[in-house]
């Protein structure tokens, strides 16, 4: 019996060892036996590798329904000729690396994508260039995936006939790193995505949001850069999000935000830079959020509260040359501002401990008035408004009188 078990063990071991050896590499090129990617996928058995050599392949609707590794050598171009989607992944453990996918079809009824991934776990999409796409990478109900160092761009002009760069829906444990997204509708769109990591991406010139986040809990996004997007970055209806070391730059326009937060609970926002946005952070119905060591530089509104925000804590942030530091629309305050640096602070520090001796009131009366009647912004920087702000500062009537930074820093905190 023991011997039999031993033999069985050897047999199974040998079987396992022989498995990788069984994987075959098929080459695809203009002069090879297999001339199209589609044929190569049809002929391949699971766990094979398909090596596509440089050249242009006019193909679309390539359906990958078994675990395969597709490698592009010398950046082979797969051109969808604007007919439909290009690659559709329907199996676990598919790797797609080193391709140029271009010219995805536009549809008002179907979500054509350069790479569509549905119900397929453990995928790797890396080092691809996606040009002129409708949707770039469209992932649904797939877990444990990696999307790494892809460049995705399009020519989006209007929202209704353009798609998102990386669109992730109902997924878990996805890592999106080092991608470059430009001129799409949303750079990255996440909906119902759990425990995922978004890092080192650059998202610019998208017509709606650089990053759009909905109903997604326990996610982290670090070190991303969002520049000049139509409306900035939106994070909505999510819990336990960490946002660290991101840059929100030049989201400047009539309805633009650096970061739009709506119904967010228990988030950490640390060491981010908000520079030259119309509204740095727009906060609506967000509770228990810690803002630590962020920099707000040259924004129209650095932080704009629009209602229902409780137990938010701002510490160690720098507010430099913003038209309005903090804007508030109620008299009630349940948020804490402590030990921040305010460039418009006019107090003194007699005991030289680096903390101003007089509290700072970040909310100006004028910002309250502008909230009520937006047209009054036309009076910005007029002498009358300065006088008005001054008198309100001396004795607050309209602005919350407990909203103050009792220990404002005298020096810039984060350099």
């Amino acid at each position, binding site marked *: 019996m023991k011997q039999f078990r031993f033999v069985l063990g050897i047999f199974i071991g040998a079987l396992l060892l022989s498995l990788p050896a069984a994987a075959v590499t098929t080459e695809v090129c203009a002069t090879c036996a297999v001339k199209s990617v589609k044929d190569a996928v049809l002929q391949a058995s699971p766990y094979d590798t398909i090596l596509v050599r440089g050249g242009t392949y006019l193909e679309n609707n390539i359906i990958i329904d078994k675990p395969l590794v597709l490698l592009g050598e010398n950046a082979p171009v797969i051109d969808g000729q604007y007919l439909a989607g290009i690659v559709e992944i329907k199996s676990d453990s598919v790797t797609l690396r080193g391709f140029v996918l271009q010219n995805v079809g536009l549809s008002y009824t179907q979500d054509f994508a350069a790479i569509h991934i549905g119900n397929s776990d453990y995928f790797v999409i890396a080092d691809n260039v996606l040009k002129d796409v409708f949707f770039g990478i469209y992932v649904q109900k797939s877990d444990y995936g990696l999307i790494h160092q892809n460049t995705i761009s399009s020519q989006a002009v209007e929202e209704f006939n353009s798609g998102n760069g990386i669109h992730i829906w109902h997924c878990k444990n996805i890592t999106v790193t080092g991608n470059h997204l430009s001129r799409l509708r949303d750079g990255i769109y996440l909906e119902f995505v759990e425990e995922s990591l978004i890092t080192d991406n650059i998202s610019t010139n998208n017509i709606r949001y650089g990053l759009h986040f909905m109903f997604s809990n326990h996610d982290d996004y670090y070190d991303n850069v969002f520049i000049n997007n139509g409306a900035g970055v939106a994070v909505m209806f999510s819990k336990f999000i960490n946002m660290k070391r991101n840059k929100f730059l030049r989201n400047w326009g*009539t309805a*633009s935000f650096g970061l739009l937060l709506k119904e967010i609970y228990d988030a950490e926002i640390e060491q981010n830079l908000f520079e030259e946005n119309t509204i740095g952070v727009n906060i609506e119905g967000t509770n228990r959020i810690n803002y630590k060591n962020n920099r707000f530089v040259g924004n129209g509104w650095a932080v704009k509260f629009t209602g229902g925000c409780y137990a938010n804590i701002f510490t160690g942030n720098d507010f430099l040359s913003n038209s309005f530091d903090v804007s508030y629309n109620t008299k009630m305050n349940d948020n804490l501002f402590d030990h921040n640096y305010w460039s418009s602070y006019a107090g003194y520090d007699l005991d030289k401990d680096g903390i101003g001796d007089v509290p700072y009131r970040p909310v100006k009366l004028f910002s309250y008035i502008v909230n009520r009647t937006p*047209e009054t912004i*036309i*009076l910005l*920087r007029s*002498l009358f*408004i300065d006088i008005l702000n001054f008198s309100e500062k001396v004795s607050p009537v309209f602005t919350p009188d407990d909203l103050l930074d009792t220990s404002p820093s005298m020096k810039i905190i984060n350099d």
Partner: protein
Amino acid sequence: MIKVLQYSFYDLIRSRWSYVYFLFYLVLGFALLFLNNSVAKSVITLMNIIIVLTPMIGTIFGVMYFYSSREFTELLLAQPIKRTTIFIGQYLGVSLSLMLSLVIGLGIPFMFYGLWQSAEMANFGLLLLSGSFLTLIFVALAYNIALSNDNKIKGFGYAILVWLFMAVIYDGMFLISLIIFEDYPLDKFTLIATMFNPIDLSRILILLKLDISALLGYTGAIFQKFFGTHAGIFSSLLVLVIWTIIPVYFIARKASKKDF
């Protein structure tokens, strides 16, 4: 007229006040550029100062000069010179010397810091242009007041009141009317109301140039559409020109009818 202008002008640029005014702008310019590293920020701070200070100095200086040179004016009136020539000449003399103090006083420090290469040149030019217009307008208003009031105290009082009205009270009324009528579309009203106050007009002109336009555009694209384009800037400048011409015309009219 050139002779009278020349005389007033030289008389004024020899006076102590012109130098004080000139030195003030010079020191201000250097201090601002030294403290703010960025030219853009300095232009904003300067704008805050210019739109308050140039009208004030213009009105006070205008009234003061008219009253103090009254004897000389009477002497000139005895000569065979047209009245409009005398008064317009004097007016231009005062305005030009004030404008010169402003332009040179701020121009030197900005040139010193190598502004000619920077992108802020256009904004700075617009700032000086609107400052010059404000001087022209408020000196003309001051002359009107001085011409119609022989009583010096009254004249000064009215002049300060005009400045106070334009710089502060007008904006207060403007704000209150905006809040009262907040349920109505206010874009056009706002646009027209700014036209009636040269201080507001130059402030908005500069603000829009300094890329605060997105803040204004947040509520109504109409400001953006109007002030943001070249046509908008030209028509605003045209309004400033009209604001200059009308009081000057009244100086001429009043001067030719006034009984000395």
